């Protein structure tokens, strides 16, 4: 991906487009969950698009990314193809994992996306090890790990902070602080000032930014990523944001005040980028053109996913292991 130049309109428009793709993908995922086409847990990234896009804009394909349960936006921003992802959500052949993983296990190793994860904070320990591998292999790539503000209270994350620092590893921890974990207000279960203070206690530089401001995320990522690539050791970015939807598609989020959501909508990231584009020569026509273009693109992926074949049942028995692999079919006798 491009270096972080000035915010020339073309570059911002490209980021905006990726944000639109994520938003449209998540809307479609939700709709198809309710339509019964997508099973399981669908954790939407709606309202947080600016973070993944602003961070990944500053990464290379050979940088690694590890994600969590809310990984669709991270995956798209890192370059995973939304078509293959949609097929995966539908459990169809041709999905990123051929239907074996589903929403919580999206991965695209070809662009360094090492996987979403169903276990909170496990991506953190995987990240520090991936960084050690990069060093052994003599690469100047870095590893970015996305973790939520609820996830920071799991021990493995704190172990990983310590680990990344003592070995001076090229790891960027991005804490997406949407102030909630499922139905729990994280402030109530998080002692002290929070993640930035904790990171600093490990001597891991930490900065808190407005995650809903694409430009601030982009600027901060540009600086931090290059510092890490140049040997600064691990750093942490706390990106403040807001989860505009429920924890997952089927969560009505009745535990929060609708007024809070209305207020948050005023600060959501898309509109702010849109305004900037308008001020910088993009017409309303261009913008709605782009929006409908993206909408059409995602609709076509849904269409493809609907029509795609199911994976053959025998695929259930492959990709397990080389030594002592199951005899496929044995079960489906």
């Amino acid at each position, binding site marked *: 991906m491009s270096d972080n130049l000035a915010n020339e309109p073309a570059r911002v428009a490209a980021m905006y487009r990726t944000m639109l793709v994520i938003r449209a993908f998540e809307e479609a995922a939700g709709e198809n969950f309710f339509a019964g086409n997508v099973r399981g847990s669908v954790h939407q990234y709606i309202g947080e698009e600016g973070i993944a896009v602003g961070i990944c804009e500053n990464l290379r394909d050979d940088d690694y990314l590890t994600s969590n349960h809310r990984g669709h936006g991270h995956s798209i921003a890192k370059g995973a193809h939304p078509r293959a992802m949609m097929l995966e959500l539908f459990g169809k052949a041709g999905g990123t994992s051929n239907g074996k993983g*589903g929403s919580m296990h999206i991965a695209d190793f070809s662009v360094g996306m090492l996987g979403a994860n169903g276990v909170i904070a496990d991506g953190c320990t995987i990240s520090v090890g991936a960084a050690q591998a990069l060093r052994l292999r003599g690469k100047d790539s870095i590893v970015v790990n996305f973790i939520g503000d609820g996830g920071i209270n799991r021990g493995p994350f704190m172990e990983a902070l310590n680990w990344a620092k003592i070995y001076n590893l090229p790891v960027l921890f991005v804490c997406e602080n949407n102030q909630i974990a499922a139905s729990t207000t994280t402030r109530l279960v998080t002692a002290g000032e929070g993640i930035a203070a904790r990171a600093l206690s490990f001597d891991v530089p930490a900065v808190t930014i407005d995650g809903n401001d694409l430009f601030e995320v982009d600027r901060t990522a540009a600086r931090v990523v290059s510092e890490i690539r140049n040997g600064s050791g691990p750093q942490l970015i706390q990106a403040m944001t807001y989860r505009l939807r429920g924890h997952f598609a089927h969560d009505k989020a009745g535990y929060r005040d609708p007024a809070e959501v209305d207020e948050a909508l005023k600060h959501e990231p898309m509109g702010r980028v849109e305004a900037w584009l308008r001020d910088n020569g993009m017409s309303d026509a261009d913008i709605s053109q782009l929006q409908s273009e993206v909408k059409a693109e995602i609709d076509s992926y849904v269409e493809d996913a609907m029509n795609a074949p199911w994976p053959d049942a025998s695929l259930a028995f492959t990709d397990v292991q080389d030594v002592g692999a199951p005899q496929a079919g044995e079960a489906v006798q």
Partner: protein
Amino acid sequence: MSEMTYAEAARLALREEMQRDPLVWALGEDLGYEGGMAGQYRGLQEEFGDDRIVDTPISESTIMGAAVGAALAGTRPIAEMRFSDFAMCAVDELVNQAAKARYMFGGQGRVPMVARMPIGIRGGIAAQHSQSPEAWYTHVPGLVVVTPSTPANNRGLLKASIRCDDPVVYMEHKGLWGMKGEVDEADQSETPLGEGDTVRSGGDLTIVSWSAQLGVTVEAAELLAGDGISAEVIDLRTLWPWDRDLVMASAARTGKLLVVHEAVRVGGFGGEIAAEVAEELGIPVARLGGERIPIPFSIPLEEAYKIKADRIASRARDLLA
């Protein structure tokens, strides 16, 4: 008698035990507002307060470790892990502490806690949310392992587990939360730990199962009845201790044993039962369990993992052939 779901029956049992004993309490993520994944804690925080239904941070090791400490210190905690998959983040606290404290300290302390960790396939939640590791915990001295199969026994077994002075690994099945059944609210008795239940009598073979797989096994027994084969079906309900006498008596009578479980066959608890019966009775035995693969996400793949009634029936026929 009133009809309620498996989840409602669990909630009833917990509520009754919390009313009976002020030292019973529960800790876990999102128990208050959410009321647990399936509403099995619904309303209990309002009723008993947030220091008896405790909403915790995402800290599985500490949820389990704190329960051990709270049990050693004279209370009866229920550590809610949400998924047996996440409980793997707290295996050390369960196996090295809860299971061993009483023994290592020469009987000075007891660990009356319930480690509650739902198992099984619910449909489309894949490899990290669908496991059935019950066999592991039967292998750990000090632990009791319980796998309820109906609303009625989920109530009775949970009551017994809360009252038990040993650490109990309590494994509800996620696929059963919505299962409806009759529960006698007036009856405050426990379903005794370690007692199996003969849910269908028969003379041609004995089929042992538990948890959600029991229902499928009963379906299979119906299919077999169609061919004039009468299968006796036993719901083990508790895996440790398992009802050896009931199983041996039945198997000795029918002369054939089939064990069926949703968990992976290799290293599953079916091996223990089949081996014990083969050792003691020397009769033909067979096992059905999942193939040794992670649980896949996509429908046809997930279906390929499951042990359906027709497969159980055909295995039974082979055994009788």
